């Protein structure tokens, strides 16, 4: 009798709280880095957009995204400073950031290879993300100026943080 009441209680609790208690939780690394990735992507999109437009990134101009990010050092420390990426919820952290532009044909085939511009330069800045675990990723849908055809109909700006 007592055993059956115990079993019914346990099964009942599991059945009712299943969604919230036994959900698949992301790694704490990803949870901490996700807001940082979101912040970085929002900073890039808002700061490098053509004046008065949304999601239309200045690419190949003097203060465009390419000139800025290529001018920073390999770890993109200036970007971290400017976008405030060195703070997690309550404390200072030192994330590594990679920024990549994925062109339309890569999206069509479902890959995330970086786009290549007219000068055979890959549109990826920051340390390489290969072989890293628990990478937090934010993708924004954008178009680049002076990127004829590559962003037709759209490119992705992918920020990875680990």
């Amino acid at each position, binding site marked *: 009798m007592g055993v059956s009441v115990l079993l019914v209680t346990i099964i009942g609790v599991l059945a009712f709280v299943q969604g919230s208690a036994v*959900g*698949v*939780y*992301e790694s704490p690394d*990803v*949870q*901490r880095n*996700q*807001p940082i990735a*979101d912040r970085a992507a929002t900073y890039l999109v808002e700061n490098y957009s053509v004046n008065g*437009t*949304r*999601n*239309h990134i200045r690419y190949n101009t003097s203060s465009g995204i390419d000139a800025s990010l290529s001018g920073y050092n390999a770890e993109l420390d200036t970007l971290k400073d400017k976008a405030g990426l060195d703070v*997690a*919820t*309550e*404390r200072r952290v030192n994330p590594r950031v990679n920024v990549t532009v994925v062109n*339309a044909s890569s*999206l*069509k*085939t*479902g890959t995330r290879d970086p786009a290549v511009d007219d000068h055979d330069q890959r549109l990826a800045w920051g340390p390489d993300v290969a072989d890293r675990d628990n990478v937090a*990723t*934010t*993708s*924004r*849908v*954008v*178009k680049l100026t002076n990127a004829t055809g590559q962003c*037709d*109909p*759209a490119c*992705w700006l992918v920020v990875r943080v680990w």
Partner: protein
Amino acid sequence: MRGQAYTLEGVLAAIVVVTATVYGLSAVDTGPFQTGAQQRTAALETRASDTLSLAAETGALHNATACYSVGTPTLNGNQTGSSTEFEMMLNHTFDRQGDHYNLYFSYWESDSSTRRTTIVSQETVENVADQPADAAVATETVTLTDDTPVRIGDCSGTGPPLSAVDGYFASDAEPDSVVYNVVEVRLVVW
């Protein structure tokens, strides 16, 4: 005397517990916990609103809403054969990444007091039926005026003005003003 000792012990114990709690809380980073599904929904929401913003910015969304093909909107969310820019955007951003979406147009009826909402993406019947609770929603509003030329073909060629064509899916909501109709485009992604 003994009572005082017990009180003192209790106070000291309380101080120890509070100190340990404060110290412990400052040692761990207490952010809100998110499940993988919640994070995925947040990412989809960003992508959906980005897509609509970009489409509105480039005019592709305006072209799509003004697209005319004998009575019905030519948008059909067709996965492969779609040639309009807006559909290609949706195709690259969602279909090709393995995400489902429904696209709705909500517009005024002819008396401009009630709104009608229709689904314009008819890729599969499952899409319409199978909407999970954690779907992400993004909306964008497009205003059409009486002299907006309808878009024909792949929605980039221009035809006669909206007020001159018959059988466009939305009717002239305010015949006395230059506004033809206000279409709210709603994208539901999961």
